[in-house]
């Protein structure tokens, strides 16, 4: 039904007559500069330049891409990079889940229950100002340098964007929607579950997406901290033995994994908030 509707909308825009060859080229060009293919081509061009430069002038600090690829495969095969990555992803996942639970629960309740807001607002606003790096010495003192520290740091960083967006989402509930819940005699609990949370969901997802990127970064950084584990530690080690190829292998791995996580999240986002995009399908 829906698919059909979208097809029809698209069909209306296409011209009735088959375009001539130069027109086709022009249309392709226009579509190209408007799509992300443009950006990907730029990335590709950059990599080509890199490869050429690194092959023509051999420099230890700029290894050619094929050498990095070989190193990357080696590190994956001997398990070093893979286990480091899994370790980082484990911390990311745990931290992200906890941050989501805490951020959504507290942010949403602050938005919907005045007492919770009155109680929590000063604390949240104060705590939000403290850079996590300033807290680190204390955290290390209290929590050591293992998992507990790493998860805690990730949670501290990732909670705030989720909390602030969940709060904004809870506040976004319109008067009419509140009155709609009342005229259908929903209880307080039903109002939150059936109307409050769904209305806040698009905001919550924006917060979660912001947090997801930060979560991965913090999981890597805390891995470098006291040299314990994860991709951060892998990179640190590569630096110590001056293995530039492994350094790049680690960095690329993070970029690609981060990109993939974001893409996965967008997919989920689009599924959950499909209803929002329907009205504005034009652009």
């Amino acid at each position, binding site marked *: 039904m829906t698919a059909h509707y979208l097809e029809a909308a698209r069909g209306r825009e296409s011209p009735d007559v088959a375009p001539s060859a130069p027109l086709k080229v022009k249309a392709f060009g226009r579509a190209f500069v408007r799509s992300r293919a443009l950006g990907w081509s730029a990335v590709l061009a950059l990599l080509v330049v890199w490869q050429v430069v690194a092959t023509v002038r051999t420099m230890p600090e700029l290894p050619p891409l094929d050498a990095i690829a070989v190193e990357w495969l080696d590190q994956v095969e001997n398990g070093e990079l893979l286990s480091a990555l899994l370790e980082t992803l484990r911390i990311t996942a745990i931290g992200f889940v906890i941050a989501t639970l805490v951020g959504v629960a507290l942010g949403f309740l602050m938005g919907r229950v005045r007492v919770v807001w009155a109680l929590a607002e000063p604390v949240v606003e104060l705590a939000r100002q403290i850079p996590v790096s300033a807290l680190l010495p204390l955290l290390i003192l209290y929590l050591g340098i293992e998992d507990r520290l790493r998860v805690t740091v990730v949670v501290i960083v990732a909670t705030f964007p989720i909390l602030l967006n969940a709060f904004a989402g809870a506040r976004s509930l319109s008067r009419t*929607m509140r009155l709609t819940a009342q005229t259908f005699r929903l209880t307080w609990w039903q109002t939150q579950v059936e109307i409050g949370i769904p209305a806040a969901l698009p905001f919550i997802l924006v917060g979660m997406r912001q947090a997801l990127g930060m979560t991965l970064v913090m999981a890597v950084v805390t891995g470098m901290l006291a040299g314990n584990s994860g991709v951060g530690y892998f990179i640190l080690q590569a630096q110590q033995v001056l293995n530039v190829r492994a350094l790049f292998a680690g960095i690329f791995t993070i970029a690609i994994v981060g990109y993939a996580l974001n893409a996965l999240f967008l997919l989920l986002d689009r599924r959950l908030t499909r209803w929002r995009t329907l009205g504005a399908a034009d652009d």
Partner: protein
Amino acid sequence: MTTVRATRVGKRYLSASRETVTGLSPVDLAVEDGAFVSIVGRSGCGKSTLLRLIAGLEQPSLGAVEVDGVRVTRPPDSVRYVFQDYGQSLLPWKTVGDNIRFGLRHAYALTEREARRRDWDALIETKLREVGLSGVAERYPSELSGGMQQRVAIARVLAARPKILLLDEPFSAVDALSRAMLQDLVLEIWRSHGLTVLFVTHDIDEAIYLSDRVIVLGPHGRGIDADAAVRLERPRHQVSTRSNREYLRLRGEIFDLVMGAQDASRGVRALQ
């Protein structure tokens, strides 16, 4: 029998700048069971406020509202409200069908058989057909036109089986043609369900066309300026009713009254 009774009911608001704003000066109102009553008046005169007080969506500062002899302190079971901005009232993340299901789940009186047989798909289709829609259950509200969305909102309210329907400028955001069709739809629903309807509108023509009674609220929360009986035969007809002499007479008088061309007290006398 009187179903809605407001006794000296009034409302004061506290504005953001801590000033007292009169939402509605004390009014008395009694609505007969099964009546179709419209409320007209200038913007800001308290029409919505009066409706919200009757719906139990707000508490009066003065006086009291009774529905079927019970004082209203929270939204009564038998009353449902249709809002002007359907875009905010329909749940945009639910399909049309699920919005109706929402009405069914929070219904006043679902027969036991319907409640037990949770298979509501057929019931949802019936409700949609009742408001002149079909085959849209899978769509989202944002995929429908404004007029269709307000139809869905009405279907959802009907699914909750109210006895008293309150509509607050339901068609003001709808184009003129859809509006005429929606007016006839509301009349048909009112008749076939034996509802009591309170209908707020800016449109004097619409008020007379639909109602048994038109109530004129004076500006600045002054309260009821006039209460006019509409003695036009039913069923009404978009063309012949609107050219009826009695219709035109009422239209002129109410128009003068609302626009302030006449002294309010003279207006009341003229209409009685």
